[in-house]
């Protein structure tokens, strides 16, 4: 059969029909396809970028957009390197001018080693949104998943760096989408309320010799101590004894972290894990950070890991139950999470994609949501996937030789010997596991560190004199049993300040102080733990301080309480360069106390409250050049029936804190209420009920992210919120007929 040599012309109609069929087909395919169709799963080697370009043309579905404006950062050309940020290919720090809304300064920029992106270092004195360092990571639409992961991590109560999307431009002027991510450093921990915590970095990769020992911050002594504790826990866990590991880890945070690791599709061996070690509780808490890359072979990968602090916990039935319980709870929130993801889409998709590409971006976002919520969160064998075999990195057994690792189990008999020695030296009374200081004078010229689990009681009439920088640290229950007539005195031996009188508990002991008159301390660091207060109470289940006088000249604070239930009553405070009283992460009440500043040059607060739920009742704050009561870190505080006199600021609220103010007298203060944002740009709320204001210079000052609201009627339920009994309504006599 032969073909005709005659050429056929294709008419206009045929052209139009052809275009209509092809164009219509593509339009139908892209605009009508289900939104959860995999953007990556196209056959015949079609690349997602090709699909994206077609989608820009043919995907015409309407997409809702948020109202927010895109934040632009600009990085100038470098004087030293001469290059623009677009051509920045050399390693090392380069100085550039960084411009962002409300911020312009010279910064240092370097390329990251382990992934594409930059690290920006801001000047110490001019931080950017409170941050010293920031990562800028080039992003596309698929990176919306990191915003979802941040939301999920926060939902699970994990500490995680804040993620946002911006446009970054250099010399060319055209901005490119970047993800900004906080660097996990001491600043971040402090911003999240973890003061006095050490950072610990751990690798789960048994093939890399360099990551086999935890990298611990702090000084050499602290490093050796924490590394030894970790080594003990992971070694014992590998040989089947989970007890030390269970004791070391914050279970809630560990379970949440493992849930996230199952969701984010990380290659466990590739991503190092950051922890915060809290000296006060002796617990390690993992910090969540989204993975650098999603592991392509995630689903089928069961490669062994190095012995670590997280995955072996899944061998413990109780921990596994907690893991499943938290996962189930998260699964039940899926409908709500979808709504919150949609809000994130509205905010961030316009940053990550051009307007024309938004329908495709929405499809990609939907796919990411589907993957996270419908596939991975509901995956049944999540725990099995994470709970893998472990083996130590090369040479581990050899490198342990000569390393300081704690004994497998704490020696039981040791304490009794130490106790007897202490009792003999200071002429104390020993009642079982309790050391009693009877009435008398005690000259202590070196740190007195009471072993863990030993209770200490100071009886009335005790007079402790501590030498310069010397501290008394009790690592068990602590009782001071002074009375108004026969108080317990603690003073410095000479003119120089002593360190601290501190209690460091594990969250189960109690501290009760009554009739203590203490002065002349400055705070200290003992055994790696920073005790900021002249009297410091860390990790106590409940702290009660009654009828005492605590005054200091040097040091940060007179009394520092970290954690637990708090009851302070009838205390006279004086001095402290930061605040006279600092309370972190505690619930309870402060009543009938007075805070007086005599030093006319010291700019300090009366009380600093961080991450607490506290009621102040009948307190008197006088003459503070800082703030009378400063409330931060999402605290909830009630201040009632109190008197604030001659303070620079009477009450301030910041960082998502809420303060109820009712029935107080404010006299001669420069400013009564301040609600402002902190360096994380998060404001505070003051709800002002009925109060008395006399001769104050200014009543209120609130910035755009905060509010000070007058409320006419004080709802008695507020008292209930703070655990204060509601006054019963006056009884009405019924007359019997």
């Amino acid at each position, binding site marked *: 059969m032969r073909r005709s040599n005659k050429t056929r012309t294709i008419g206009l109609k045929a052209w139009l029909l052809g275009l209509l069929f092809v164009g219509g087909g593509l339009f139908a395919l892209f605009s009508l396809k289900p939104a959860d169709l995999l953007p990556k799963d196209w056959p015949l080697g079609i690349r997602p970028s090709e699909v994206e370009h077609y989608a820009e043309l043919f995907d015409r579905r309407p997409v809702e957009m948020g109202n927010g404006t895109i934040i632009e950062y600009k990085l100038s050309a470098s004087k030293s390197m001469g290059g623009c940020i677009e051509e920045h290919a050399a390693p090392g720090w380069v100085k550039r001018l960084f411009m962002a809304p409300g911020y312009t300064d010279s910064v240092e920029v370097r390329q990251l*080693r382990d992934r594409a992106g930059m690290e920006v270092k801001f000047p110490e004195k001019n931080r950017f949104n409170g941050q010293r360092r920031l990562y800028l990571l080039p992003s596309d639409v698929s990176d919306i998943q990191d915003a979802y992961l941040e939301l999920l991590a926060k939902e699970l109560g994990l500490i995680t760096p804040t993620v946002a999307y911006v446009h970054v431009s250099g010399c060319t002027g055209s901005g490119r989408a970047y993800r900004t991510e906080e660097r996990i450093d001491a600043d971040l921990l402090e911003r999240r309320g973890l003061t006095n915590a050490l950072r610990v970095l751990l690798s789960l990769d048994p093939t890399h010799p360099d990551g086999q020992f935890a990298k611990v911050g702090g000084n050499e002594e602290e490093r050796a101590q924490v590394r030894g504790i970790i080594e003990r826990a992971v070694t014992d866990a590998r040989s089947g004894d989970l007890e030390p590991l269970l004791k070391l880890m914050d279970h809630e945070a560990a379970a949440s972290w493992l849930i996230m690791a199952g969701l984010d599709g990380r290659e466990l061996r590739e991503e190092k894990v950051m922890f915060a070690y809290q000296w006060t509780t002796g617990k390690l808490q993992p910090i969540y950070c989204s993975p650098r890359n999603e592991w392509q072979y995630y689903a089928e990968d069961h490669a062994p890991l190095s012995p670590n602090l997280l995955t072996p916990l899944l061998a413990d039935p109780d921990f596994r139950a907690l893991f499943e319980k938290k996962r189930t709870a998260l699964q039940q929130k899926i409908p709500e999470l979808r709504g919150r993801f949609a809000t994130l889409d509205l905010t961030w998709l316009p940053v990550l994609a051009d307007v024309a590409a938004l329908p495709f971006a929405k499809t990609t976002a939907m796919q990411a949501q589907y993957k996270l919520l419908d596939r991975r969160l509901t995956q049944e064998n999540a725990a099995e996937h994470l709970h893998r075999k472990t083996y130590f990195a*090369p*040479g581990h057994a050899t*490198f342990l030789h000569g390393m300081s690792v704690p004994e497998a189990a704490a020696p039981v008999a040791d304490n009794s010997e130490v106790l007897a020695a202490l009792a003999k030296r200071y002429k104390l009374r020993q009642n079982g596991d309790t050391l009693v200081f009877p009435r008398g004078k005690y000259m202590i010229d070196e740190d007195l560190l009471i072993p863990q689990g030993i209770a200490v009681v100071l009886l009335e009439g005790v007079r402790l004199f501590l030498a310069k920088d010397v501290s008394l640290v009790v690592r068990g229950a602590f009782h001071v049993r002074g009375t108004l007539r026969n108080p317990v005195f603690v003073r410095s031996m000479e003119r120089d300040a002593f360190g601290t009188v501190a209690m460091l508990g594990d969250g189960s002991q109690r501290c009760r102080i009554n009739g203590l008159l203490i002065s002349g301390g400055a705070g200290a660091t003992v055994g790696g733990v920073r005790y900021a207060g002249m009297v410091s109470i860390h990790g106590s289940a409940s702290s009660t301080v009654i009828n005492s006088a605590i005054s200091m000249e040097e040091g940060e604070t007179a009394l520092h309480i970290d954690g637990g239930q708090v009851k302070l009553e009838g205390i006279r405070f004086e001095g402290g360069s930061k605040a006279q009283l600092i309370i972190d992460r505690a619930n309870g009440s402060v009543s009938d106390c007075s805070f007086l500043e005599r030093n006319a040059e010291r700019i300090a607060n009366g009380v600093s409250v961080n991450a607490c739920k506290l009621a102040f009742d009948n307190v008197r704050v006088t003459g503070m050049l800082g703030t009378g009561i400063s409330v931060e870190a999402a605290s909830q505080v009630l201040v009632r029936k109190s008197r604030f006199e001659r303070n620079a600021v009477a009450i301030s609220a910041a960082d998502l804190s809420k303060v109820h103010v009712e029935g107080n007298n404010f006299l001669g203060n420069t400013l009564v209420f301040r609600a402002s944002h902190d360096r994380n740009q998060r404001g505070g709320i003051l709800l002002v009920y009925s109060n008395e204001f006399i001769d104050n210079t200014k009543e209120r000052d609130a910035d755009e992210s905060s509010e000070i609201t007058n409320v006419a009627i004080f709802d008695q339920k507020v008292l209930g919120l703070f655990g204060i009994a509601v006054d019963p309504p006056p009884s009405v006599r019924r007359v019997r007929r």
Partner: protein
Amino acid sequence: MSRESKGIGAGWWFLLIAVVLSLVVFVFLLGPDRAIKISAASFLSTTVDGLSQDPGPHRLRQLDLRIDQASLDQLESDLPWSGGEKFPAIVLEHGVEYPVTFRYRGMYSASHYLGDKRSFRLKLKKDNPFAPYRKLNVINPKSFNMVNNHLGIWIAGRMGVPVPWNEMVYVRINDSDQGVMEMYEQIDGDFEKIRGIAKKEVPVFKGDYAPIIDRKLPPKRRLWESADHWEFVGKADSTAAQAQLKALISVVQDTLRTLSERRDTLAKLIDVDTYARYLAAMVVVNTKHMDQYHNQWLVMNERTGVFYPIFWDALLMFPPEGEPLYFINDAIAHWFLRIPEWRLLRDRYAYQALQELYVKGEFMEKYDHTIEEIQPSVLQDRKKYGHVSLTPADVHRFSVVHTISSFAGMRATVNAYWDRLNKRLAANDVTVERGEKLTLRSSSEAPFRLTWSGPMENAPQLIAGRDTLTAERKDGAWTALVPRAVALQEGSWDRPNANWQHYDVQPLNVSIVFPYGVPLDLTITNAITDAEIK
């Protein structure tokens, strides 16, 4: 439609004749074995390797190197002698250009410089994508399966022996694919600092062939003959370490010390536990590649003040002749393996490793995982060069068929060897006679442990033949080790520097006298496996 049949053209006939003729010439020149191996490798690499389509993305890390082509040509034109010359280059990672110093590897292994995939070394600055490592060898893998050394190192590291960081990578130089190579940490004084256990450099000695001077290969030297045969690397203070090395060598060279005296002195100079692991790893990896002349390292543990070795250039299944259980690779092994309790420690580590790696199948899991990871890169690698025959100069391109068959061969070899070794260590071929004395006769190789209960008193002394065994108190019972005597093979020169020797375990025939007669509750166990002998 009909197709006209055509004959084979004259050109094709000419080509065929040329091929046959060249084969004949090669067979004549090289011998049939070499000629066939070289031509088969060439044929298969040309025909089979090109069939692979879309092998998928690399799962290995990729090393992208840029270097001035003229410098590269200059170095290549003078290999292996240009091995010491360095040129600046750039490693490209995530779009960042990291400056490095590049040099080719020269002598001694031909696979480093023959062929078109040449080994090289990189020296990097502190800020580099492989930090904390700063000196890296990038080696043309020595076997067809390419992972032989990598897996040998993995096994030793798994057994607690210090090893260099070793990772398979896919290399590109100036945008041209070099293929799969083995990245290998070059050890120096930073060895412990990199691993996070020392803050500064530690003393490290390298035991290898002498450096090449004036393009001449220096004569071989035995490492344990003199401290001068070891090269100090790094910037740590070497004074104490040099003195300790001299002391160690004098103990090794002194043939007149008693066994107990030698044991006690060596224990002060070397990390006995790590040496036991090191020698155990050598048995499990089945390699003889660390010998009297090269591939040895000594690191001074400043926390304990003793030397420990590094397992280097492992070569999985490169066995000494006859697979002896107590192979003497060097002078220190000559003495170490004579000490019964140290030999037992080594055997226990070897057996423990076999239980995990072989019996529980952890090695084969790793093996399969490694194959999965390397597969896409091997399929894309068109520069697979290696020794295709036993002649060192025969470094030629080989095919993926070689790789596949080498993987299968290695799997079979490892399984067969470990099966033999496991049975050998666990063998309890023993007869026991109890009477006034305990008589043990055994033709297997394991020592035995006797355990019995008894009151706390002075350690009982057992008379075993002409020896006295002192019992130890352990877990509330008395226990004593019945060691096995070992002897060099007949005709061997009983000196630490003698090459390629081994000890044979002598048959056991011993009567043991207990102070108060043979205890009724006496249990006898294989001291390596702890299995009770019924």
